[in-house]
């Protein structure tokens, strides 16, 4: 089943409490996915600095030693911030190289995300506990996506939990299942993407990273995804300065979006959105099947339309 939520702030008003609001939304989605949960939270970041979030699911590594080795490899400064079984490496070096080195050289680690803005945490267990363990409520930021998992086709492991991220500041959560992920994974590996699990959603994340690296913008990448991904999906996608939603053309998996002047929220069910401040004045609609919705802070700061810059027109199209 799974539950997904996404919250994107259009103005600074709710940024200090972004984590708290996301935790409220995640709590409402517990019933849809009680076995594991995860969240990715984006802030404005620091210019020239990359953060790499890693997970040591089965061991307790010596984070300082790994940090020092990474610094030598990158020829750059590395700071380590451990949090339970996760750690965030902060570096002024090459983030993609850091990710690859950590995957290749430190067998006990899984790299969950890297980028200038993103940090990503996930774990098995009660979603509320996951939120508490990684201090979701205490975090601030510009946008966040989160997931509660009810595993149906693979084991309940942290590795199989969402969100998945393979490219810089790109991650997604997924409700559904992809049927052509094995074939697509091979194609993507041939194109230089690396994967750490057998999970279908990781392939979707890898696909987007690949398209973005190939020069697509997020809208074009998702347009291509509509052609190349086969299966059922409702995606909430976080990117640098932006947020996107995509549903497959059959749209079996639920989604609802609400938008105010201050925020855009998306969830599997309205009750998650009902927790947000100002929801009574929000525009609420069901995203159309096969239609790409994106919001970008860049557009907002550039003074473009204050509402959604949907790939086609505004979101006020209808429940179709």
């Amino acid at each position, binding site marked *: 089943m799974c539950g997904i939520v996404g919250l994107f702030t259009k103005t600074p008003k709710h940024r200090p409490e972004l984590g708290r609001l996301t935790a409220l939304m995640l709590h*409402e989605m517990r019933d849809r996915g009680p076995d594991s949960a995860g969240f990715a939270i984006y802030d404005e970041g620091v210019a020239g600095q990359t953060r790499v979030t890693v997970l040591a699911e089965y061991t307790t590594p010596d984070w300082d030693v790994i940090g020092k080795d990474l610094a030598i490899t990158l020829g750059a400064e590395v700071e380590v911030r451990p949090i339970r079984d996760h750690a965030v490496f902060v570096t002024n070096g090459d983030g993609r190289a850091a990710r690859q080195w950590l995957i290749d050289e430190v067998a006990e680690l899984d790299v969950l995300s890297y980028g200038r803005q993103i940090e990503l945490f996930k774990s098995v267990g009660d979603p509320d506990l996951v939120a508490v363990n990684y201090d979701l409520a205490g975090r601030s930021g510009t946008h966040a996506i989160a997931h509660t998992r009810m595993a149906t086709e693979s084991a309940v492991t942290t590795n199989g939990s969402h969100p998945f991220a393979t490219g810089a500041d790109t991650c997604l959560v997924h409700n559904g299942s992809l049927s052509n992920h094995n074939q697509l994974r091979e194609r993507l590996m041939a194109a230089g993407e690396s994967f750490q699990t057998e999970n279908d959603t990781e392939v979707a994340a890898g696909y987007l990273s690949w398209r973005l690296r190939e020069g697509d913008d997020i809208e074009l990448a998702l347009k291509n995804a509509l052609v190349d991904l086969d299966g059922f999906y409702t995606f909430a996608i976080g990117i640098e300065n932006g947020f996107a939603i995509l549903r497959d053309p059959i*749209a079996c998996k*639920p989604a*609802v979006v609400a938008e105010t002047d201050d925020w855009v929220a998306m969830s599997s*069910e*309205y*009750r*998650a*959105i*009902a*927790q947000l401040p100002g929801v*009574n*004045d*929000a*525009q*609420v*609609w*069901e995203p159309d*099947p096969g239609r790409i919705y994106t919001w970008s802070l860049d557009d907002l700061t550039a003074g473009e339309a204050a509402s959604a810059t949907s790939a086609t027109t505004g*979101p*006020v*199209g*209808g*429940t*179709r």
Partner: protein
Amino acid sequence: MSKTKAAKPPPLPGPVSHTFDLSETTLREMNHALHQAESGTFAVVNPRGAHAVAAGIFTDIDVVVNGSVGYYCAGMHQHGRVRVEGNASTGLAENIMSGEVRISGNATMSAGATGCGGLVVVEGNAGARCGISMKGVDIVVGGNVGHMSAFMAQAGNLVVLGDADHDLGDSIYEAELFVRGTVASLGSDCVEKPIEAEHRDVLERLLTAAGLGGRPEQFRRFGSARTLYNFAVDDIDAEVAGTSRNRSKNTKTKKKASAKQRGQSATKKRTTKKQSSQESSSKKSTTEKRSTKQPKNTKKGAKQ
């Protein structure tokens, strides 16, 4: 599409006997109390997207919900009236038997699914598969309906004042579909049919009951071409090849065709189906009496 409509909400049907505040009362307590009531008007506030709000009502009571509800609102509804000032999620009034369920905003997927009677009014838009497997319910949608609405519909009326998205009435058995706006495409075995006096009467009645405007002459009518009622043995290969959408009884004469010929006949089928739908329209006056016979289930079962 705004969930808040400019129009003032209609007056309450009577003095409010009790107000349930779902931020204080549990859903189970409220639904239990509603099931005990035999008359009166009940208000519900702070639903905050809760599922199964006012589900299983079976007496002649009025329930007015102020705010948006989650899944299966007013499911299995009988006799009474439920009005929601807000939006509804999946499965609004699922399996409604009688009475009325009305929503001022939009409904997402599968509104009025499997309903056997009563009236469902969605004043805004309804999402995908509105009226899926409807079995006698009347549904009036003020705005648009999503794709595959009235999928496998069996009886009842779906009235759409706006547009219908792709595959309207796919694999429809019976039921009458009326659309005022455009239809993106019709589903398998769904065809346009002429509107006769009896259909205008039905429309008049439903449009009046819904109170959302519209005149019967503005609507087009769609229904079943009834070519899927019986299994056509010649289609067995087409079935395997996954081209079941174009099957037609008209291919009965092409028994024992070679594989190659069958491939050709598949192309012919499309033309014959078009012709047959025109024929069925013109022959309408003799064949159009609303059929009460139960469709045989052979092929439809296989489709599910």
